[in-house]
């Protein structure tokens, strides 16, 4: 069972929900929480666990060797991403721009651009009892989030079977990395706030999920602030509202200290309890 937690934009409480839900479920089940916001993973700030494994992650990029090169310029011509450029007698590769398509390498008449691994980030796996936590972090200056997200998925698939509830904290937005993070999920939880910004971004996220043909539900964070438009929209569109996390200054304070809120606020625990029932139900469907 794979659950992805996503939102149209950052700052809606996606990380709060992921970390609290994962820790709560881990009280009784085996859970793995994965932070796929590889540009700025920060679920880890809320989770106390021991490091189990740390792995550098690589992507394949071409490296020029001058010896056989006939300076035909074919490599520059075939790269759609301007990641190889001919400068006088030199071929330069810009690894940050390379998408690793192999075109320049395999179409070079003299095999002068072999593909070599280049480090793009680090994956860390932590564990505390039932709760596993995996995060990947892109190196500064690296621009391609998608390859690292793919490799992180692969790691999860290798390490954890269907008995684990696998929760993914997705990057915000509706662009490429989000699609990559959510496309394998069995169920998506969209987090939003009951405000005009929240509604606007929720609608974009809903469009995305419909395009991906995903089953999804909504969690309303900071419920009680703003207005009822998000609820009305969900009713109209027949979107399931899974939980309402109340608005409170106390929650903001706990969050600011990096603490888990469900442990101190019974209403939040009750909302998570509701979500657990739904997740366990879905889990049976998937395992069947």
């Amino acid at each position, binding site marked *: 069972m794979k659950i992805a937690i996503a939102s149209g934009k950052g700052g809606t409480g996606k990380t709060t929900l992921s970390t609290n839900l994962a820790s709560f479920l881990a009280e009784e089940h085996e859970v793995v929480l994965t932070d796929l916001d590889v*540009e700025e993973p920060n679920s880890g700030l809320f989770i106390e666990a021991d490091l189990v494994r740390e792995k550098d992650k690589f992507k394949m990029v071409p490296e020029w060797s001058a010896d056989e090169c006939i300076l035909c310029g074919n490599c520059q011509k075939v790269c*759609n991403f301007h990641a190889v450029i001919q400068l006088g007698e030199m071929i330069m590769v810009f690894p940050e721009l390379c998408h*690793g398509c192999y075109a320049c390498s395999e179409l070079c008449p003299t095999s002068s651009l072999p593909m070599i691994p280049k480090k793009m980030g680090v994956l860390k796996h932590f564990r505390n009892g039932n709760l596993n936590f995996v995060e990947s972090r892109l190196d500064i200056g690296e621009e391609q989030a998608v390859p690292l997200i793919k490799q992180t998925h692969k790691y999860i698939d290798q390490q954890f079977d269907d008995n684990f509830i696998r929760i993914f904290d997705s990057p*915000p937005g509706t662009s490429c990395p989000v*699609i990559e993070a959510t496309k394998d999920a069995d169920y998506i939880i969209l987090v939003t706030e009951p405000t*005009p*910004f929240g509604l606007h971004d929720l609608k974009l996220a809903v469009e995305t999920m419909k395009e991906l043909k995903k089953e999804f539900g909504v969690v309303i964070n900071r419920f009680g602030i703003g207005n009822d438009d998000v609820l009305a929209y969900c009713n109209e569109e027949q979107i399931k509202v899974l939980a309402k996390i109340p608005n409170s200054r106390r929650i903001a304070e706990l969050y600011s200290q990096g603490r888990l809120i469900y442990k101190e606020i019974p209403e939040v625990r009750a909302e998570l309890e509701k979500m657990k029932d739904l997740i366990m139900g879905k889990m049976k469907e998937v395992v069947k």
Partner: protein
Amino acid sequence: MKEIVVISGKGGTGKTSLTASFAYLGGKDVIVADCDVDAADMHLLMQPDFADEDDFYSGELAHINQYDCIQCGKCKEVCRFDAIPIIKGKYIVDPLSCEGCGYCARVCPIDAITNKDLNVGKWYISNIKTGSMMVHAKLGIGADNSGKLVAKVKSEAKDIAEEERKDIAIVDGSPGVGCPVVSSLSGASFVVLVTEPSVSGYHDLKRVYELVKKFNIKAGCIINKYDINKKVTAEIVEFLKKENIVHIANLPYDEDFTRAMTNGQTIVEYSDNHLKDLITDSWNKIKRSVN
């Protein structure tokens, strides 16, 4: 013309509400650019009229002409992104997986593959309620490279500012530390960092400031909701001092932020309280720092 860029690392710090307030205070003299193209919200507060609209193309998508295809399988063999599944006996490009690298088209023996320019969104030039203009955009679903759209929005805003002889362009910057925020920052005269005193907020502030430093841009910082965690606030203030960042203001936790937004208003229109004064002072301080 000076360009002021407001960024925050991660979302939810009140960045857009503050940028909109500054745009409102600046009135006719300030051109607005919404570079948070992935989740553009500024238009909800600025009443744009969408006067001009244009498609934005970036990247390509492969398309297989089924009539010509001889099913040799070469394209599928070279595609590193598993973007050419065989569906009902036909080679079909999966638009969500295709990276637009163009490799398949180069190896197809009978040129059955064409690369189409990919429409990744729209951008707009609008008249807004402040009497000025705003450039904004909407990124399509699953689009890559919002960095290029950000660059487009910014360069348009700059051109308009110069044509109309405006002194200031204010930019609602992109989130994160990746390519879009790099595009937001390039060419800026001053950066306003909006943060909140949480462990993650402080962490994001430091990361995004690394980038600002690389560009060598003068920066100031607003600590929003400073009173939810005074300990972290104190640490942030220390950090600002050490890095020589102008400490623009501390703003209290105040639900007027949300109430104003719910009314479709900027905070300075909605609230007549202390918050309005603090934001007005901040704007004046920013203007002084830019000049």
